[in-house]
């Protein structure tokens, strides 16, 4: 796994691999997750969920449940304030407040099987469960629509009578399931296709899949008699939980404190709220702390999966292998409420390539499935599967090497995407070069039914607000406080950036992820932003510490602060080499020389750099069973700067594995009536260790000029290429072009004409 380092600048801490600060607690089981939390006198909550995919709620009678001994309170949508129409920002997307509130507890209609309609708090979980059975809900069952193509048809069952298509700001006039239509265009499409010698056009479909985090959603709420609300939960963004709970309950943010517990995976799915408002409501009703934890079935049926998609892609190229035109139509299932990631999917689709003429249409469509949430590079994996399959087919038709073809058309600095933006310094071409130079690409793949595929992918990465404080300890170490949930080793990558500035070792910076009362506003851990943005806040806060320490040195030495220097951990004064004081020595003097020093910074950086990846997959297909074995898999990715390479590799591997699962076996297996049949990890088949080879990694570092250490963000793009890389490999192994996900054994047998 030879990493390709293209960054010139050398660092002392950034780029090394220290042991993570939270490592010991996690491997010894001491770390406290949401499910571990408990308070004296705590009640247990359970949620009643709709057994129907689409039904009008005529009435809810909770009296029998309330009368059950041990039950302390029941809430329904009536307990929620009637929300205003409005938009809430959750970092990776915007949500309509009324829809958000209805998703917490259904008011008029249940829109998917698993939709919450009531919640109970009782002295124990079994009593709460028994109470659920006593709640009488009178449903008028309606026909359900659980497929995007069906939902777009005239005469399809309508989920929201008030919904009108928003087409680039133009509102439609009739009820519809198409919440919005977007379009991006560049050049003149007809001209582009006229220049092409070869054109490939194909339709693709992907299934609904779940993020599959191991830890189910949980929340404990305490509504104190003085009106202060505290919520302990597992989230990617404590401040987002605070904002959303405040908006849903119409309660001031200042009275809500959210304490983020350790998080057992989120992948985008924990950037929204489900149980948090219920825990608060039930606590207000009962006067006791109330804890709710979902079962796996509830997680599958009631929390955001990632959208199924129906897609059409057409691309043309000249005989010489130059792409001339690209056209696509992407329809995404938003689930029960508008807001799929189709926009991001459209923008990422053709981003790896420089194409002169293009047009992309996107449709956001509601269906009777749980409301989609973000999932690692939201939208980009679906569209990437379609585009990279077509790119591969073009290369095949032209008789060109798939990497050479991609290199010839690669986006580079100055390339304008079809959706408008012009790329700055990017590593698209560098990833392709590194893939071509990799050990994997030059190795030979022999034997029947084996094939090798490649695919590239793109994700923007985001900036957004982060805060950080650093206080200096008397022993020369520092405590760093930040607000970013650590889902991938970011305590380490953030602390390391402060350590670099302060000339400390990584272990001498002790990071803490604080609650919303204890640190400034910080956006979600999502969009691959945390090492980039919160790391930047740490960088600035460390500089603030240094500035104050220089002032202190100047005061002690009666020197001009501007003349104080700091090198290799030692303060000095220009022109007087005898004057020297180590960081630790000064730290020990702070309390008697003017008081403690705390550095602070808040940032809202705009200079995020996009991330590119290229993956190589070798597979063997059993032609009698259709089963795919992944023989070898290599991920190549531009990290900008890998602050902690082990965690960058971990993200690359984890993303690739999730993409492989999505490609091969994962899917919501829906009955026509809208029930998910496979709501356990037994039948929702994520890959296990035995299903995978070691995922090889090649980190490419094309420094992002928009960050002090060149960081781009690495968490999301690795999920984008796998489905296409595997489809392209399967094509070469057994000759079939798979255009639907998952590429399960049954689907492959069918495509091969065996069954």
């Amino acid at each position: 796994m030879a990493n390709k380092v293209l960054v010139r600048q050398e660092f002392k801490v950034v780029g090394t691999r220290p042991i993570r600060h939270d490592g010991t607690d996690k491997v010894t089981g001491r770390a406290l997750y949401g499910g571990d939390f408990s308070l004296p006198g705590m009640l247990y909550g359970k949620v009643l969920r709709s057994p129907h995919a689409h039904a009008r709620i005529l009435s809810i009678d909770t009296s029998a449940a309330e009368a059950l001994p041990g039950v302390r309170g029941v809430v329904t949508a009536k307990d929620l304030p009637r929300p205003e129409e409005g938009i809430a920002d959750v970092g990776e997307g915007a949500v309509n407040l009324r829809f958000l509130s209805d998703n917490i507890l259904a008011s008029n209609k249940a829109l998917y099987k698993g939709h919450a309609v009531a919640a109970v708090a009782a002295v124990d979980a079994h009593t709460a469960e028994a109470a659920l059975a006593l709640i009488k809900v009178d449903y008028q069952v309606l026909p359900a629509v659980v497929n995007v193509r069906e939902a777009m048809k005239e005469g399809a069952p309508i989920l929201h009578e008030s919904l009108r298509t928003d087409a680039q700001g133009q509102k439609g006039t009739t009820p519809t399931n198409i919440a919005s239509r977007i379009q991006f265009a560049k050049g003149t499409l007809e001209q582009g296709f006229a220049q092409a010698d070869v054109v490939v056009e194909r339709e693709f479909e992907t299934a609904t899949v779940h993020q599959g985090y191991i830890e189910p959603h949980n929340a404990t709420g305490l509504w104190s008699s003085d009106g202060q609300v505290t919520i302990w939960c597992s989230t990617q963004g404590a401040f987002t939980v605070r904002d959303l709970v405040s908006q849903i309950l119409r309660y001031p943010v200042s009275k809500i404190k959210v304490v983020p517990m350790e998080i057992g995976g989120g992948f985008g799915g924990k950037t929204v709220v489900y149980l948090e408002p219920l825990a608060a409501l039930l606590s207000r009703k009962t006067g006791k702390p109330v804890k709710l934890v979902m079962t796996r079935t509830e997680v599958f049926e009631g929390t955001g999966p990632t959208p199924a998609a129906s897609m059409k892609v057409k691309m043309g190229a000249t005989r010489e292998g130059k792409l001339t035109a690209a056209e696509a139509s992407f329809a995404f299932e938003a689930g029960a409420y508008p807001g799929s990631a189709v926009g991001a999917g459209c923008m990422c689709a053709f981003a790896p390539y420089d194409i002169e003429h293009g047009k992309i249409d996107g449709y956001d469509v509601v269906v009777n499935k749980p409301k989609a949430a973000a999932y690692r590079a939201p939208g980009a994996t679906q569209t990437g599967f379609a585009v990279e399959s077509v790119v591969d087919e073009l290369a095949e038709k032209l008789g060109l090497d798939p990497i050479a073809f991609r290199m010839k058309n690669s986006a580079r600095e100055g390339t304008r995407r079809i959706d408008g933006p012009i790329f700055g310094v990017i590593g698209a071409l560098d990833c392709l070069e590194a893939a071509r130079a990799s050990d994997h690409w030059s190795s030979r793949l022999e034997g029947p039914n084996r094939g090798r595929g490649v695919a590239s992918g793109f994700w923007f990465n985001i900036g957004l607000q982060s805060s950080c404080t650093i206080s200096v300890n008397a022993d020369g170490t520092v405590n760093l406080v930040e607000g970013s949930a650590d889902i991938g080793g970011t305590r380490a990558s953030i602390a390391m950036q402060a350590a670099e500035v302060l000339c400390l070792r990584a272990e001498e910076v002790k990071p803490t992820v604080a609650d919303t009362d204890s640190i400034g506003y910080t956006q979600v851990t999502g969009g691959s932003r945390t090492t980039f943005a919160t790391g930047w806040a740490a960088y600035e806060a460390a500089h603030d510490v240094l500035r104050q320490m220089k002032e202190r040195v100047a005061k002690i030495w009666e020197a001009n602060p501007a003349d104080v220097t700091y090198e290799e951990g030692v303060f000095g004064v220009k022109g007087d080499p005898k004057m020297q004081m180590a960081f630790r020595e000064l730290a020990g003097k702070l309390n008697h020389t003017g008081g403690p020093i705390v550095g602070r910074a808040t940032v809202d950086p705009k200079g995020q750099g996009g991330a590119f990846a290229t993956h190589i997959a070798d597979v063997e297909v059993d032609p009698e069973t259709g089963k795919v074995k992944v023989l070898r898999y290599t991920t190549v990715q531009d990290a900008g700067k890998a602050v902690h390479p082990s965690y960058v590799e971990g993200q690359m591997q984890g993303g690739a594995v999730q993409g492989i699962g999505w490609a091969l076996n994962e899917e919501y297996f829906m009955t026509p009536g809208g029930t998910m049949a496979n709501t356990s990890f037994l039948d929702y088949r994520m890959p296990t260790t035995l299903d995978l080879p070691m995922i090889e990694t090649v980190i490419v570092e094309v420094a992002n000029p928009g960050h002090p250490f060149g960081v781009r963000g690495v968490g999301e793009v690795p999920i984008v290429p796998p489905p296409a890389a595997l489809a392209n490999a399967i094509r070469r192994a057994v000759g079939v072009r798979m255009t639907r996900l998952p590429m399960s054994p049954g689907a492959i047998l069918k495509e091969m004409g065996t069954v």
Partner: protein
Amino acid sequence: MNDFEYRAPASVSEAVALLVEKGERARVLAGGTDLIVQLRGGRFTLDRMVDVKGVPELNQLRYDAAEGLVVGAAVPCYRIYEDELVAAHYPALVDAARIIGGIQIQGRASLGGNLCNASPSGDSIGALIALEATAVIAGPGETRSVPVEQFCTAPGRSVLGPGELLVALRLPPPKPRSGAHYLRFIPRYEMDIAIVSAGVAAVLSPDMSSFVSARVALGAVAPTPLFVTEAGAALAGKPISEESIALAAEAARQAARPINDMRGTVEQRRHLAAVLTTRALRGAVARAKGEQVNGH
């Protein structure tokens, strides 16, 4: 889940008495890897759980060249595949015991529980049928024996009557020049439920050129594990060849009457019934010839 009573009898008679007393409201607990999952999933409620892991007869694992093998109903999988005599004489049983769940599950899961759970895809059942196992059943009446192929009557249902308990499985000693193999098809490489499975045993002629007899069992292609006598009959007296094996595979395909569900389609399962029968037969023949064959 409601509160229920947990009892751990020390003898078969005590266990039977505890079961009889509560009738339908009592259930046997062996490894619990089906029972507890189903109970938590709300499939049924209980008043009493009767843990049989402390009953000596249900914990025996004994091989004798004349009598064959006795596997107590509560013996966990790991004891089966770690036993050298079992591995030497009944490798097909090891094929099954090794793939039920993962290491943790195998520390608890028993063949008795696998059989009594009566799932059409239960992994030990096909191997047991191929190996001519019989189920020894104790109850309020006489102790009785039932061939495993007659044990399951519907998904989740068996011949066990009220108060009855599976005590052990008895397998006859392997015949000379015989071999058996169990295979399942799953989309993943572990921790999965068979889309289709095949348990096969074959006895070869003294010159190893033809089949004397064969037994073929299929899983997950009918409401119960299926004993396909037609497939065995198709092989009797036939030369050992791909053509003969294809006849048996075709018989297996014909016998399969699967359903469409989230795990597979009718066509896929019929096709796989033939593929797995073919592959398992090849393995069984190789083992009969003394060759080493890997489970999966």
